[in-house]
């Protein structure tokens, strides 16, 4: 038994080494920070004590932030369901014109970092000089003020409804059409079928989508920061950032306690999601087929108009405002021909500070994506193709940091790595590492957070490859390593390239963890963008946002082509 394991490990060669190193790194960079964070919440100079936690919990501001956070999370879930489910049904079950294009267009807001859309909306709906406010002639107290909880919810809802839509859509497409047809022949009208058969059967998919957007709403930082801060609306993530920003011991202790609260609520939501997904599998099944489509009749145009309107609201309007802003010479002067130009682009792209941040984000995203895909392949290969005990550890473990709010993870990193770490056997053989304020801490955080993408993409690709292909290679005399390199990887390549892009894109514009972990030398694109938007110059922020949005949309279209339409938007 044991000898078999040893032999298998030896045969796997470098793969086993990579898996071991990755496993160790995951423990160091994901388990350790979380444990340190948890311990830190009741560890004081005076020893073990619940005092910091109690102090944080007895602070009314903590409760307020918690309630606002829950409100934002519930609101986001509600908006995403109200927009996503009808859109999914219209796309999957009616004779709506132009469904293919509509589906892609409706998915796009999800690909773009939500804070970019939020910047667009702030430009439109801020009380001082919001474009929509001026257009409607609203000013002073009558002006619409986006800097409120509803503003946060609206921005998050418009960015994340595609998630619920896509999840519901695929549940609807996977449903055996005869389930609905049997109801029709039983005497049910099309609308009755929707409410007694279609929706009840999609409940698990909808609920799991809603829980996901609930979690996202709870963990979001960028949108609540940009939209909420000026109106003094604080959620847990922004409260944590504010406390860390102040930086006194007391504030850090408060931030730690808040992070623990956030982490616990997120964990509970996650457990519920697991349960729902499992239940969903029991309800679906049967063969999918060509569903019969409900003829919308004269509502066809109305429905298509409504969905295109949604595309306009969730994508085109905020994005075009950004693009226009990026060309504005003087921010206050408004949209006249002589006030338009490339001066912002020139100043942004001619500035070494900006170029430095862009370069930082580019290489960090590229390296993180490479590491995530590499480890993802190895982890997923170990799980599905070997018999080594503990092979499921890495893929399973990768899901944990992905589900934990980035702010919580970053807090763990701050606590665990703000001192020098000392790895050593004796006083002579040791290495000392200080990760804090270096690019490495950002790289580690990105890798830990997005490893799940690499694992999932590899899992999906590996299940597509019939084991007999590998077995044929083995019986023709190839070692396992050769099989992986010579047979498995080439077949998986398009999926892996797609996974690489899918990690690269969100890291490129990452803000939630970056804003807590960046150092003086390691500003990233996202952090700089926030600086521009908050303190310096909205048009400059618009330049970066426009470039980032275009990159992300282009990247997603590339992924879509690479994956044959299965991934990307």
């Amino acid at each position, binding site marked *: 038994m044991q000898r078999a394991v040893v032999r298998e490990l030896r045969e796997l060669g470098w793969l086993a080494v990579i898996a071991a190193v990755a496993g160790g790194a995951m423990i160091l960079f994901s388990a350790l920070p979380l444990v340190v964070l948890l311990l830190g919440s009741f560890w004081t100079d005076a020893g073990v004590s619940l005092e910091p936690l109690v102090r944080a919990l007895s602070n009314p501001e903590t409760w307020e932030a918690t309630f606002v956070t829950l409100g934002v999370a519930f609101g986001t879930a509600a908006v995403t369901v109200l927009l996503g489910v009808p859109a999914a049904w219209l796309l999957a079950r009616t004779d709506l014109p132009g469904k293919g294009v509509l589906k892609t267009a409706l998915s796009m807001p999800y690909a773009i970092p939500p804070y970019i859309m939020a910047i667009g909306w702030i430009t439109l709906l801020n009380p001082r000089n919001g474009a929509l406010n001026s257009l409607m002639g609203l000013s002073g107290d009558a002006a619409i003020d986006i800097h409120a909880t509803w503003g946060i919810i609206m921005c998050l809802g418009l960015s994340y409804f595609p998630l619920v839509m896509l999840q519901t859509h695929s549940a609807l497409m996977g449903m*055996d059409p*005869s389930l609905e047809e049997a109801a*029709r*022949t*039983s005497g049910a009208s099309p609308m009755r079928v929707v409410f007694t*058969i279609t929706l009840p059967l999609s409940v698990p998919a909808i609920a799991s989508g809603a829980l996901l957007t609930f979690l996202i709403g709870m963990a979001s930082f960028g949108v609540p920061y940009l939209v909420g801060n000026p109106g003094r609306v604080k959620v847990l993530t922004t409260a944590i950032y504010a406390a860390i920003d102040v930086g006194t011991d007391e504030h850090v202790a408060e931030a730690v306690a808040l992070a623990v609260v956030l982490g616990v609520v997120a964990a509970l939501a996650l457990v519920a999601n697991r349960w729902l997904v499992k239940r969903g599998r029991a309800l679906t099944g*049967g063969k999918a087929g060509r569903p019969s489509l409900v003829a919308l009749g004269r509502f066809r145009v109305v429905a298509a108009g409504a969905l295109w309107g949604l595309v306009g609201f969730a994508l085109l309007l905020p994005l075009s405002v950004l693009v226009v802003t990026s060309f504005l010479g003087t921010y206050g002067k408004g949209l006249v021909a002589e006030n338009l130009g490339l001066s912002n682009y020139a100043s942004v792209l001619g500035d070494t500070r900006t170029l430095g941040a862009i370069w930082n984000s580019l290489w960090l995203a590229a390296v993180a994506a490479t590491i995530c895909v590499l480890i993802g392949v190895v982890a997923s290969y170990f799980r599905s193709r070997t018999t080594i005990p503990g092979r499921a550890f890495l893929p399973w473990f990768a899901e944990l940091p992905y589900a934990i709010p980035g702010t919580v993870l970053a807090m763990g990193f701050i606590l665990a790595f703000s001192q020098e770490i000392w790895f050593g056997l004796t006083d002579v053989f040791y290495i000392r590492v200080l990760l804090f304020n270096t690019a490495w801490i950002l790289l580690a955080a990105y890798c830990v957070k997005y490893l799940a993408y690499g694992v999932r993409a590899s899992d999906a690709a590996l299940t597509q490859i019939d084991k007999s292909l590998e077995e044929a290679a083995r019986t023709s005399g190839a070692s396992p390593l050769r099989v992986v390199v010579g047979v498995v990887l080439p077949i998986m390549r398009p999926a892996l390239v797609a996974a690489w892009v899918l990690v690269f894109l969100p890291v490129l514009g990452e803000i939630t963890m970056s804003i807590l972990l960046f150092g003086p030398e390691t500003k990233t694109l996202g952090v700089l963008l926030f600086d521009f938007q908050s303190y310096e110059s909205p048009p400059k922020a618009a330049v970066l946002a426009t470039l980032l949005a275009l990159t992300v949309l282009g990247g997603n279209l590339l992924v879509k082509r690479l994956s044959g339409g299965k991934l990307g938007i």
Partner: protein
Amino acid sequence: MASVTLENIQKAYGDVQVVRGVDLAIADGEFVALLGPSGCGKTTTLRMIAGLEEPTGGKVLIGDEIVSNPAQNIFVPPEKRRLGMVFQSYAVWPHMSVAQNVAYPLKLQGSGRAERDVAVQRALDMVQLGHLGKRMPHQLSGGQQQRVALARALAMEPRVLLLDEPLSNLDAHLREELRREISLIRARTGLTIVYVTHDQEEALALADRIVILDGGRIRQAGPPPEVYTAPVDAFVGGFIGKASFLPVDLVGSGVKVAGVDVAVDAEGLPEGPAQLMLRPEAIVLSESGIPAKVTSVTYLGDRHELWLDIAGTAVRAHVETPAAPGDQVHVSFTRVKLFPVDSP
């Protein structure tokens, strides 16, 4: 219960004609099987009766009511037709219990609670599931789920029962059991039934009338013995039973196979090349007659299946006495049918 009348119904998806003018009058209480190769339009035809598919041409009548006629812009949606339908994939709703599944159409018909419970129990009893009403579908086997679907269709007291390959997803043993039950239910209820299948045995065993479709057209419609013994063309002959076809030359009113005269009914056929249909059981080994060579032998339990080489053509025969590959034998035919060569 009601009759069903199809008058020249057609269905096209874009430019593709799938059903090309089907005429069929199904009498009240009749059991009709639609039989044909894959893709011939059986399901489409059945779905047009159900109203799940709108014909692009022709009329559909249920009883005296025109339920579909594009020329007059008439289309009655499926929920208003009161037809029971059973699908190949069962289509039992997984979020409802067995009893709730069966009660669903009754609820929509507006029947009261007490009345409904009685009807549900009666329908479940009819398919031998009277004791499983509280179960959820995922706790049932495939055969049981199909019984639930059948009970659901029966409970609504449909005017016509439509079944689309209801037994194809079941294993051979269950299939036979459920087939027997369908014919019992049919005898008990006297329902008008339209039954789609690609399994000729099912059609032969169950139906009053078999309708053979090919390429969206009816090739032949008639009682099972007629379709079997008197196929109108080589396609039907070949599709039902495992007939082989010998190329022959029609001279006068007779044909020769390997130099031996074979009596045929050649009425209406032009002289020249023709094909001779041979059913496996119509070939007998004899002392003299047409020479043939045994090429392979398969033991089938109650008989032997031989592949014979007769004048260069491979022919299937079912015989009772064994033979060995390579044997030179003589055969004669108890029944043959002659078709022109141009029929497929």
